[in-house]
């Protein structure tokens, strides 16, 4: 018998031990444990290291003194930082009262829908949101339409009705950034407020703390703990925002570094300038990440992606929030109404405006269908690669953690190595896609026509951009409880294939589904990489939408935007269901 008991298993009286077989060893088991991690690590290092090295190599020839003196460059950097700072302040100023209101008001119609929409801001393609904002706040948008209608009876014959200020420029950029980041901030702060322990509220009720004392002693500390990290995150998101600035900014007075790199590469073909700008961008992002990691808290790492929206369980009857006065109630409702007015109309526009007189023509259009196909292919490939890289890196991290736990002496060495491996994947957050793109552009320029490789480059860049998200989603399920599962699997002699099939796959199915869904949705909505490498030959839906918005063909843009949002929604839910399954969670 090939798989009999080991000869040592004797000595049991009467036991021709019919039981346990030895593990089946396959070719898979002979691979060293670090295969996955090394493969994934190599891919990440190659794809980021080579472009960065080439970028730095080119930088050696830059006339740095001149670059530093350049007035235009200074203005671009100043504008990038300034708009990011303003956007951050506005988003937080709006988010704090909204989070407080949602924390107080547990039950009102549409609460779940509203907090759900808040959570979408991370996966909604920026360029689609831009369309929604233009449709509502733009020159021919809903608000101006309402102003026209309402104003008409009061206006003298032939007088101009009141109009919104022009959307393009700083106004539009700020509006879009607040639209994206205020809900994100509100969600994070709501989570912080809901995290205040019930026994603290019981104490507050017993002591009869006033509303202002409760705010000062309980709520503000919970909010303030999160503010530095949150502000850094929002600042970074706004600083590196590309699609919004490209579509709503532009011109010398409203250009950020990201957009300037793109223009230098694609329009002016000024490589030295592109390199200089990319390096400035990289330096500032590295500094921001440094600041951010100082505030990092492990519990907001998932950005609310894995948590369910607060379900708004009602407060117990003795709770101080239940006995709030009428004025407080009114203020809270005002804040919620304001948030709804900011968030809902662009979403509504995205869904409604897609149905217009051009719908059939646009959907039947070969260019649209081609872009749709490219989008889906790029999204699925990038998601697969992101998840594979994340699982590869984490398999190494897990192994190193287990070794650290089991081994004598070198306890800390293995653990540190594991953390370094994980940090490698997260380091990508430092590198803005535009910088990576510029580096890849320069690296490949000598070897191939970069524009003919557009789709491949889009896939690679987006796979890397999705990697930090995939790592955050998968790290917990892969690493938590690994020690006891490992001990059990080893005690039973499960071979690698059996272990994957019986232990890892069932446990990771849902997290992998979520990671794939998030990566695919981010890739499908990305404009950065395709703007750099796209052309008339290779387009994706975001690029097509940007082109149509740019040439003010709003009906066609509307259909494209709706199609893009639907594609993202289908990719997200489709991947979650296909990979994750519909079954109930295990008890």
């Amino acid at each position, binding site marked *: 018998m090939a798989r009999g008991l*080991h000869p*040592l298993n004797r*000595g049991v009286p009467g036991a021709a031990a019919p*039981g*346990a077989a030895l593990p*089946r060893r396959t070719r898979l088991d002979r691979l060293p444990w670090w295969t996955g991690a090394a493969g994934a690590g190599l891919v990440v290092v190659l794809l980021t290291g080579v472009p960065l090295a080439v970028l730095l190599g080119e930088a050696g020839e830059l006339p740095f003194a001149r670059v530093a003196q350049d007035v235009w460059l200074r203005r671009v950097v100043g504008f990038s930082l300034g708009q990011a700072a303003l956007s951050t302040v506005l988003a937080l100023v709006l988010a704090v009262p909204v989070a407080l209101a949602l924390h107080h008001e547990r039950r009102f119609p549409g609460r779940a829908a509203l907090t759900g929409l808040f959570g979408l801001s991370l996966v909604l393609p920026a360029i689609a949101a831009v369309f929604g904002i233009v449709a509502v706040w733009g020159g021919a948008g809903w608000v101006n339409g309402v102003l026209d209608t309402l104003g008409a009876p009061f206006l003298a014959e032939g007088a101009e009705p009141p109009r919104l200020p022009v959307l393009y420029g700083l106004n539009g950029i700020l509006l879009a950034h607040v639209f994206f980041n205020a809900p994100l901030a509100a969600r994070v702060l709501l989570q912080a407020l809901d995290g205040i322990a019930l026994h603290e509220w019981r104490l507050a009720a017993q002591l009869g703390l006033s509303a202002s004392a409760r705010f000062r002693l309980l709520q503000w500390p919970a909010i303030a703990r999160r503010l530095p990290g949150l502000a850094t995150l929002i600042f970074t998101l706004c600083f590196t925002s590309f699609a919004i600035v490209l579509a709503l900014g532009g011109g010398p007075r409203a250009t950020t570094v990201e957009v300037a790199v793109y223009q230098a590469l694609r329009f002016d073909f000024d490589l030295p300038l592109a390199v200089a700008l990319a390096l400035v961008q990289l330096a500032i992002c590295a500094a921001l990440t440094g600041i951010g990691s100082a505030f990092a808290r492990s519990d907001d790492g998932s950005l609310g992606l894995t948590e369910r929206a607060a379900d708004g369980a009602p407060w117990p009857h003795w709770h101080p929030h239940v006995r709030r006065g009428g004025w407080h109630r009114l203020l809270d409702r005002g804040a919620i109404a304001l948030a709804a007015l900011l968030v809902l109309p662009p979403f509504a526009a995205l869904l409604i405006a897609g149905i217009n007189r051009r719908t059939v023509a646009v959907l039947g259009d070969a260019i649209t269908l081609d872009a749709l196909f490219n989008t889906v292919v790029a999204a699925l490939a990038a998601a697969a690669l992101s998840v594979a890289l994340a699982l590869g890196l984490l398999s190494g991290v897990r192994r190193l953690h287990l070794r650290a736990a089991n081994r*004598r002496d070198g306890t800390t060495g293995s653990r540190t190595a594991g953390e370094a491996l994980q940090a490698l994947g997260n380091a990508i957050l430092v590198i803005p896609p535009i910088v990576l793109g510029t580096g890849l552009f320069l690296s490949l320029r000598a070897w191939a026509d970069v524009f003919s490789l557009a789709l491949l480059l889009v896939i690679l860049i987006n796979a890397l951009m999705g990697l930090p998200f995939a790592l955050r989603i998968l790290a917990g399920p892969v690493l938590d409880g690994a020690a006891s599962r490992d001990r059990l699997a080893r*005690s039973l002699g499960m071979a690698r294939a*059996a272990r994957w099939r019986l232990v890892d796959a069932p446990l990771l199915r849902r997290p992998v589904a979520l990671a794939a869904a998030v990566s695919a949705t981010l890739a499908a909505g990305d404009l950065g990489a395709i703007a750099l490498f796209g052309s008339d030959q290779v387009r994706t839906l975001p690029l097509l939408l940007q082109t149509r918005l740019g040439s003010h063909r709003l009906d066609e843009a509307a259909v494209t935007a709706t199609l893009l949002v639907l594609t993202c929604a289908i990719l997200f839910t489709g991947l979650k269901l296909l990979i994750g399954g519909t079954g109930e969670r295990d008890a």
Partner: protein
Amino acid sequence: MSLDIDGVRLALADRRWRFDIALATDGVHALLGRSGSGKSTLLNLIGGYLEPDAGRIAWHGEPLSGLAPAERPVTTLFQHDNLFAHLSVADNVALGLDPSLRLTPQQRERVSGSLDQVELAGYEKRKPGSLSGGERQRVSLARCLLRNRPILLLDEPFGALDPDTRTAMIALTRELIERQRPCVVMVTHDEDDAHAIGARVLELVDGGVRRR
């Protein structure tokens, strides 16, 4: 013949242990010791979860070093985490028959039979999360029954159970021991458990044993 732990030395983080014990192969041994006396470390050495820095562990004169845990003539009942939470009770037990879980109908029947022996007939489809602590340990015991290895290691397996459950669990474990007559090494800090299982009580002091 015996289970020999011969001059085994191990340094883990900033602790050092030395074990020198010979245990009769057909005995039921209870090692009593305070926390930190190295009880669990010793079981992890025998089970193959730790490799010693020096010395040797031998079964019937043959060294165990270098063998993976599953290749050793050992099955272990830990205090916690004996089961995969996402697998059904039947699958958890069946892993003792085939670690890749491809079972013949006859083997499926043996799984049900062993569940019957621990008085959990009909629990096949349940998940560990829906069981009480005592039931979970009985599922683990059913798997030990099927693995039928010559050495049974018990790592405070009754420590987390309430008194009634504990009595029932001890009775079932005794049944298993009487049927299969393995060499049992139990570590515990509770002398009553040791007596209840019918063990010879040894005290673990400075890595050696003191008979009482």
